[in-house]
């Protein structure tokens, strides 16, 4: 990172989207040639994401009843209170309280499916990304992993990605009727898992022996894109690129 002229304030402003366009372009250009700088920015992004999702899984308590108003407004206030109580009650009952740490661990079947696929010889042909998940394409392209499998199975749609250096990553997507949950990652030196639900879909990512920083970067970006479906920004692409490392297996 030596040699660059970006202050800590500037790097944080970039992560927060508060940097002017010209300065953003300068920084992106510098990151493209300075892996250390890119990793530092990626670390700041991870911290921001981690803080931003600290309490995602915690359900706020119901709204309090509004305070009583003057007599002339009592009926109106009561109506508002009733409405609020009704809305709060509907929200409360329609959204079962999420556990503080929702269990997004993949079922054994998903793990087995990943193991089976990962241990099979690499296919010679590439699979086609389903149109519904086209937003994933630029993200995964930046990872250097290529889509080798897109197949429905007992765990939903199984997207299998392979890299040039033994990396295999599975993304399972299936319909889900529970409320949205935050990104939950379990990182082990051998097995890496991430899961979340959003917009009625459950996403599970599984990889073996992948560099943990790389896996975390892929998971956080895929998580973000699954929620906004917006094209990945140049900064996000740069971060994923900077995190590319070979798998150990």
């Amino acid at each position, binding site marked *: 990172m030596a040699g660059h002229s970006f202050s800590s*304030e500037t790097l944080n402003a970039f992560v*927060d989207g508060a940097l002017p366009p010209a300065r953003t372009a300068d920084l992106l250009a510098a990151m493209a040639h300075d892996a250390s700088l890119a990793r530092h920015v990626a670390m700041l992004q991870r911290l921001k994401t981690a803080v931003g999702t600290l309490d995602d899984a915690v359900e706020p308590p119901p709204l*309090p009843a*509004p305070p009583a108003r003057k007599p002339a407004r009592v009926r109106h206030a009561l109506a508002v209170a009733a409405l609020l109580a009704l809305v709060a009650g509907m929200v409360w009952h329609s959204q079962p309280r999420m556990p503080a740490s929702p269990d997004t661990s993949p079922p054994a079947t998903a793990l087995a499916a990943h193991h089976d696929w990962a241990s099979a010889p690499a296919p010679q042909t590439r699979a086609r990304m389903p149109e519904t998940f086209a937003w994933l394409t630029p993200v995964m392209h930046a990872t250097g992993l290529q889509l080798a499998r897109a197949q429905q199975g007992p765990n939903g749609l199984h997207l299998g990605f392979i890299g040039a250096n033994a990396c295999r990553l599975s993304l399972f997507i299936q319909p889900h009727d529970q409320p949205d949950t935050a990104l939950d990652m379990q990182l082990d030196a051998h097995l890496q898992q991430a899961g979340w639900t959003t917009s009625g879909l459950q996403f599970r990512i599984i990889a073996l022996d992948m560099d*943990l920083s790389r896996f975390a970067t892929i998971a956080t970006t895929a998580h973000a894109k699954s929620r906004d479906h917006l094209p990945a920004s140049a900064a996000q692409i740069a971060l994923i690129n900077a995190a590319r*490392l070979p798998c150990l297996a």
Partner: protein
Amino acid sequence: MSNQRHHSALLALRRRLFGYACALCPDMASAEDLYQDAMLRAMSARSVPVDQTAFRVWVFRIMRNLWIDRLRAAGRLPELTTDDDIDTHIAINRTDDLTVNRLAVRQAFMKLAKPHRDVLALVDIAGFSYAEASELLNVPQGTIMSRISRARASLAHSLQDNDKVVALPLAQGKQGFRG
């Protein structure tokens, strides 16, 4: 703003407001109390900003003022120190490769100085821009930038020192490989 719009706007902000309360308070019970008090105060207000951004700043300011009142009542207001009291020489060069888990981040976050927790919560949890946070805290944007920078440096430093964090130095010799 009509009552209905007022309450709808409050409902829309409830998650972020509660997240902010959780960030400010040391435990969930205190956070729930602060959240309830702030919502009650906001719901009973007779004059409410019409502009959406101004409304957001107004609601969060209510919560923050209530929090400051509680700190003052507990004799802990001095903890809401100025930047002069906060270590500004935190080295974070060795933390670039941190991978963190939620529990560790929460623990490290709660160890931050209150002004750092405050500004990180406003920007990262509540989603305020620097300009909005500047207005809410009544400080220049430059101060927001430096506080954010110091807060994240402090958070990274704390995570690095936390044994419970999975700290993942990229293996020597790996750098430069691709694929």
